């Protein structure tokens, strides 16, 4: 069953973009932020397809083409570790190991309390402070183990 409240919110987003088909990517980005779980449910794809009059398969194609979208529920905060070469040569692998140790999960997984998801990202343009990670919209750089523990504490406290 589709939650009517969510359906209403999806339609509002579509209206905000004047029902333009060209705004599909923008619509999907906004829809993904509707819940704390940072994902787009298959049911919602149906609503978007119908409302924008775009075939379901086309919407699904776009949804799975771009790496920022997820069809599976994720944590409230997505910790994205930069996997690009400038961070790599500044030992981002060690950053990965520290996050995995501190959170007790592996890359790609979500903590049991559904607070954090660990995943890789492509370059976030923070090469001057590499190794860098992005949490939500915030970027953290020049990471050390102490700094990472502090960051996690800060988010847990929220």
């Amino acid at each position, binding site marked *: 069953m589709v939650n009517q409240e969510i359906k209403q919110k999806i339609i509002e987003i579509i209206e905000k973009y004047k029902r333009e*088909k060209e705004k599909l*990517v*923008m619509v999907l980005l906004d829809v993904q932020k509707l819940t704390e779980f940072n994902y787009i449910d298959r049911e919602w794809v149906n609503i978007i397809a119908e409302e924008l009059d775009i075939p379901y398969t*086309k919407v699904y194609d776009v949804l799975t083409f*771009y*790496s*920022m979208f997820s069809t599976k529920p994720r944590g409230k905060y997505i910790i994205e570790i930069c996997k690009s070469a400038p961070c790599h040569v500044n030992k981002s692998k060690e950053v990965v190991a520290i996050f995995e140790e501190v959170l007790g999960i592996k890359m790609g997984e979500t903590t049991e309390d559904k607070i954090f998801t660990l995943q890789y990202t492509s370059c976030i343009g923070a090469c001057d402070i590499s190794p860098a990670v992005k949490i939500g919209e915030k970027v953290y750089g020049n990471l050390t183990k102490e700094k990472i523990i502090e960051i996690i504490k800060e988010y847990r406290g929220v």
Partner: protein
Amino acid sequence: MQKTLNIITENVGQIRPDSVDEYIKIGGFEALKKAITMHPLEVIEEIKKSKLQGRGGAAYPTGIKWEQAYYVDKNPKYIICNADEGEPGTFKDKVILDYLPLRLIEGMTIAAYILKSPKGFIYIRGEYPESQRIVSSAIKEAEKMGYLGDDILGTGFSFHIEVLSGAGAYVCGENSALVESSEGKSGRPRIKPPFIKNSGYLGMPTLVNNVETFACVPYIVKEGGEKFAGYGTEFSGGTKLVCLSGNVKNRGVYEVPFGTTLRELIYDIGGGLPEGRKLKFVQLGGSSGPCIPESMLDIKICYKDLKVKGLTLGSGAILVVDDSNCIIDFLKCITEFFYHESCGKCTPCREGNKQLLALVNKFINGSATYNDLETIKKVGQIMKEAAFCGLGETAATAHLSLIKYFEEEFVEHINKKCRANICNFGGDKDGKR
């Protein structure tokens, strides 16, 4: 002699990015005011004189591009600013987006005035949400003050700009993929011709330029093309924003005149490498660029000088890699990137990257042979020649250049030796990664 300049980056951090008043105080919109008194072809002539070449990586002469767009006889024409800055190690457009968005808006508006374009888009990558907000706010402010929107400066000419967001796809930096993505579709590159200049956004003529390219235009219009060209070399006009990253002390974005050598950039501006480390190689132009040894650092940053040596500057990313890194381990990082980012449309890229990754992994786990080394060269060459777009054509650039200059280390790995002690050939948990 002064090593860095601030032609485009003048006043970075000194004004509120979305304040039109503050931008005007530093000479903002004077170029637009001048441009609307000029004939479009006069403006284009100045840009030609400036020797400005596209700053996104392809280095196409901007004046010629705009002239071609001017003569296309189909309307409406659209203008798209490529702010998809996805090339790893590139973070120079972000400086303009975050600190001087009005300079970009002014450059785009001048282009719109020349082409009588009613509508433009700034396509900003999804990884830069903060930049999207700053640019959107600057657009609103410029509209409020009459420098953008309806009836600009009382000329009767109207031009609107909208911010579009990417959603994480490197291939969207390619201009036809960018246009596809701007239309809300998956960003797979289009077959050309028809070219974007004739049939781009919604099938209409479209001018696509990089952020830095548009940001150069106000200076050129205001001060004249010759003055801008004077900062560079005979073949490459003006200055370039370069992004220094990796194992170097002063990482960051610097504006340097063309003609600066890589050695000056890394050691004089960048402060050299951290104590006790030795430079192993430098990768030019991001992950799609070539890797060159220390002995080649006296080469000048100039499109022509680099081209003669078979190199490219690309977007201006300069990644310094020290001797604590392993060539093969580095290559694995690059290969995984392209394997992930290949859109899958053409076979050379989709299958080539898959094979390259499998081959690089053999070097890492100690099962590679001399034959594998030859296969990397062969697959890389096929991709370079047969891939559909720039992504596949350049995905093996790092492989081919590293083999050219550091074949020794590949051979060492065949013999199960990693001089940086990073590859673990035992095939235990760590070695597999």
